[in-house]
């Protein structure tokens, strides 16, 4: 199935999902832990994938994912449905990762390759080898550059959003992105 | 803190100077078995229990004017004293109960904010409060089991088996000579080790202080996650110490310093014998709290 058709299908599924999910969200907001559990299961993989990409280790990704959902539970009261829950959770998770990083004293671990067929949720990349190279190259980036690259090119956030999340200016984020891409291009040949 | 209040209440009762509206005086007595059970329920105010040598339970004090009544019943060997409130009470105010019980009685109490003081009772003592303070002065009870949520718990009794718990209040245990189980989640735990044979002290974020001589046959274990643990012992203390902390500092005035457990992990431990040994055994474990062994 080509990319466009897959995207369309995905969005259709999301419509159906959104309807029943709205009910779960409502229940969870009122304190229904089991409803929140269902929401968790629906979004755990997305959040975990993000945390794994940004932290580079499964151990950290687990901690960060937990922290993200705990925070989501607390913040759910303020979620008005103005965005899809997935996007809201995603951004919340990014903030958790960034905050954690500020207080983390650990050195970043090697990026764990996510090129495990069993763990792939959706579309497979066209050329596995190149993806692994890219992830390895990403792991070698300096942290600021890697963060920006992941947030902008992988996760799709805009410069304004990234800048806001990190307390930087868009001038800085753009410069870091250019540098990240240049370094990656040089590393990948 | 309690005593002045109770004294005042008693004084008022004696003086009889209260207008009829304000409070209801209590002055009742019932005969009771010398080794029976006395159950006490009072939501708010104070509860004072003193053991004496008469086969009689007396209750003096003042009942909150809006309380429905004081239940004071004896059934077989069980005496029940309960402040009964009307069904739909909006604001509860305290009733002051000054209770005398046969010294050999077993006492069970339950209050919410009423402070509880128990003195000279030889039977088992068991009870709980939510925010009321608990002070037990003992006379050789076999078993004392008291707990509070936010109140402080103070047990000064030569009991063989003490369990004193609070969630956020402090827990003090003095004079116990058998098994002691003292814990608080965020409050401090202070133990006078004296004659303790088997001690288990635990906090999550509160500190633990153990002081005094150690029983030569004593075994003690103190655990805290982030609270500090301090042992203040006489210079002649004789015991085998095993102190372990994952990330806290360990300081020792009795001899050797703590060493790292491994090159790779942060943990430190100290395993040594002081004063020629003897049977005492002291184990301390913390995650990040410091452990200090100090000479008194």
């Amino acid at each position, binding site marked *: 199935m080509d990319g466009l058709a897959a995207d369309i299908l995905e969005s259709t599924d999301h419509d159906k999902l959104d309807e029943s999910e709205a009910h779960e969200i409502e229940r969870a907001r009122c304190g*229904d832990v089991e409803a929140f559990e269902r929401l968790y299961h629906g979004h755990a993989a997305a959040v975990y*994938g993000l945390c794994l990409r940004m932290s580079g280790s499964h151990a950290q990704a687990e901690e960060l994912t*937990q922290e993200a959902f705990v925070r989501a539970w607390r913040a759910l009261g303020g979620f008005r449905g103005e965005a899809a829950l997935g996007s809201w959770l995603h951004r919340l998770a990014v903030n958790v990762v960034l905050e954690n990083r500020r207080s983390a004293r650990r050195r970043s671990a090697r990026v764990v390759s996510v090129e495990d067929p069993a763990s792939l949720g959706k579309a497979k990349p066209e050329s596995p080898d190149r993806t692994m190279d890219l992830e390895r190259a990403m792991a070698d980036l300096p942290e600021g550059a890697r963060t920006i690259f992941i947030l902008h090119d992988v*996760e*799709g956030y805009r410069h304004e959003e990234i800048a806001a999340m990190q307390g930087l200016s868009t001038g800085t984020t753009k410069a870091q*992105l250019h540098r990240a891409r240049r370094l990656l291009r040089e590393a990948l040949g | 803190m309690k005593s002045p209040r109770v004294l005042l209440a008693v004084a008022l009762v004696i003086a009889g100077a209260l207008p009829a509206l304000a409070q209801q005086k209590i002055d009742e007595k019932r005969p009771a078995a010398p080794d029976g059970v006395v159950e006490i329920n009072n939501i708010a105010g104070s509860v004072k229990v003193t053991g004496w040598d008469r086969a009689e339970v007396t209750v003096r004090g003042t009942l909150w004017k809006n309380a429905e009544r004081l239940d004071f019943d004896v059934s077989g060997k069980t005496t029940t004293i309960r402040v009964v409130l009307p069904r739909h009470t909006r604001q509860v105010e305290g009733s002051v109960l000054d209770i005398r019980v046969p010294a050999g009685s077993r006492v069970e109490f339950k209050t919410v904010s009423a402070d509880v003081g128990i003195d000279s009772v030889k039977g088992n003592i068991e009870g709980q409060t939510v925010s009321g303070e608990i002070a037990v002065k003992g006379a050789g009870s076999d078993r004392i089991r008291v707990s509070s949520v936010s109140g402080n718990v103070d047990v000064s009794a030569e009991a063989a088996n003490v369990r004193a718990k609070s*969630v956020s209040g402090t827990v003090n245990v003095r004079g116990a000579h058998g098994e002691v189980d003292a814990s608080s989640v965020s409050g401090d735990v202070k133990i006078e080790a004296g004659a303790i044979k088997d001690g288990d002290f635990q906090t999550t974020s509160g500190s633990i202080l153990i002081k005094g001589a150690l029983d030569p046959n004593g075994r003690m274990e103190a655990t805290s996650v982030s609270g500090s643990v301090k042992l203040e012992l006489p210079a002649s203390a004789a015991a085998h110490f095993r102190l372990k902390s994952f990330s806290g500092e360990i300081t020792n005035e009795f001899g050797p310093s703590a060493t790292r457990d491994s090159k790779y992990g942060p943990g430190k431990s100290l395993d040594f014998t002081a004063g020629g040994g003897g049977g005492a055994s002291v184990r301390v474990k913390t995650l990040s709290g410091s452990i200090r062994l100090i000479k008194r």
Partner: protein
Amino acid sequence: MKCGEVLSRLDDYVDDLLAPRERQAVRTHLQTCVACRTREESLLALVKQAHDLARPVEPPSDLWPAIAGRLGDESVRRPRPSRWRRRTLPLRWLGLAAAAVVLVAGTALTTAWLVGRRTVDIRPPAGADMGAPMSASLGPEGVRLKDERRQLLAAFQARKGRLMPSTVKVVEKNLRIIDRSLGDIETALRKDPGNRDLTFLLAGTYRQELDLLRQAVQLSNDDWTGGKNEKS
């Protein structure tokens, strides 16, 4: 526009961030400059590849129990039932309340395990590895323990309205303290998996939490305390 100027604007061009006039200038240059066009293509490929990386990844172990355990420390949440929910909510809570009564009475098995403080022998299973879930560190008893904790937390949540606000505050504050400590111990266990002292600390701290939850649930079941009417 010269190559140098184009190359320095290429990222923004690919991201569609250039002002219309600059965008046009770059596009014009790219139409005739092979070198710059090659660079543009490789940049596009990189960005496309990066975008493909954004895939969900199933967590290797079930993180829900650990999350559920930490939900108990959230601040008092005022229920905002929407119209259709009013019918279903009370029934659910009634079920939980009944369960709570059963729970407080029937935790003999786990209590027996927990009460024997020094007799507790918690053997980490062979091969407990980095990032393994906490229940693995505590063995099968740990699983039961975490289940009970989850149920008690739910019961407490459901019934805490019956307690005085001041009591709820103390209980929740201390649940937060315990949960933070549990998190710290678990973090330490990740640095030093299989560490028996840490496992011991973990079990002891879980025990304190269960004690606290049981106490809170029991208080909320009490009839005679008069509930929220107390003037503390």
